[in-house]
């Protein structure tokens, strides 16, 4: 890897770094995903155990993501032939079809743009990243997991549900929120509004912490 190549880190609320990527299903650009949510995730290497369990897990939530208008796109620095061989192996040995495209980021260009290489974990492989990008191309959530720890699909789905609920209803979601739970009403921004808040019929602990059922 060129140590002088620019490493950037996406920021929440900022535009997702642009890319044009060779994948197992052809070449895609980030702009192709405009109008849909996108989960871009990275894994360290093909034909490795934790990554294989994660690919199977991502495949298992693929239909749930589709229902939520979410596209799924994987990435590692392995080649297209390696990706193809691996997904064929997963299908043959484990009976799971991998329906989403996987980027072959051989020159690590996309990995560098998205801050996926963490040299203290690995100088050559991407760590386990998840970027949730909204239909306008804005980065809404990021997860960075170490090489040793597989990600949790329930949490990824939960974050998608939470973000989509926030966008639709202009609310926030509390700790451990799941669909159906009360949501957080945006706190008052003036003294006058704070004074009125406790009389507005919400379930309040205090003027700044109020919930409601959707």
């Amino acid at each position, binding site marked *: 890897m060129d140590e002088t190549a620019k490493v950037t880190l996406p920021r929440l609320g900022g535009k997702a770094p642009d890319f044009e990527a060779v994948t197992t299903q052809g070449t895609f*650009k980030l702009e*192709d*995903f405009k109008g*849909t949510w996108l989960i871009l995730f990275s894994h360290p290497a093909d034909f490795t155990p934790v990554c294989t369990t994660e690919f199977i897990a991502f495949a298992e939530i693929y239909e749930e993501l589709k229902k939520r208008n979410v596209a799924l796109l994987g990435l590692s620095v392995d080649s297209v032939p390696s990706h193809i061989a691996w997904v064929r192996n997963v299908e043959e040995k484990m009976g799971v079809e991998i329906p989403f495209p996987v980027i072959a980021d051989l020159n690590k260009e996309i990995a560098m743009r998205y801050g996926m290489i963490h040299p203290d974990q690995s100088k050559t492989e991407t760590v386990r990243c998840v970027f949730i990008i909204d239909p306008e191309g804005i980065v809404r959530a990021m997860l960075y997991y170490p090489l040793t720890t597989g990600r949790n699909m329930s949490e990824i789905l939960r974050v998608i549900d939470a973000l989509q609920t926030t966008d639709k209803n202009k609310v926030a979601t509390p700790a451990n929120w799941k669909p159906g739970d009360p949501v957080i009403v945006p706190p008052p921004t003036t003294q006058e509004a704070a004074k009125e808040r406790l009389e507005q019929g919400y379930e309040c602990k205090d003027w700044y912490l109020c919930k409601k059922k959707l």
Partner: protein
Amino acid sequence: MPCISADGKLTSDGRMRLERLKAVKAVSAEEIVSVTGEPLFKVRRSLRELKTAGYVEESEGKYTVTEQGLKALNE
């Protein structure tokens, strides 16, 4: 599947897409998705490939088959 093969020829997927486009007047990627149910990102990619190859042209977000595209379908 990509619409154009490595040697620049229409793939079966590309041929199918051109046939569908030929059957309608100018159509957008979103309109194609509403009929076929495919992922929007795949439709956009396919239309871009066909446009780069000269088989479709785009105006204000709507795509139509070109003379070159019609010729490719007849080959």
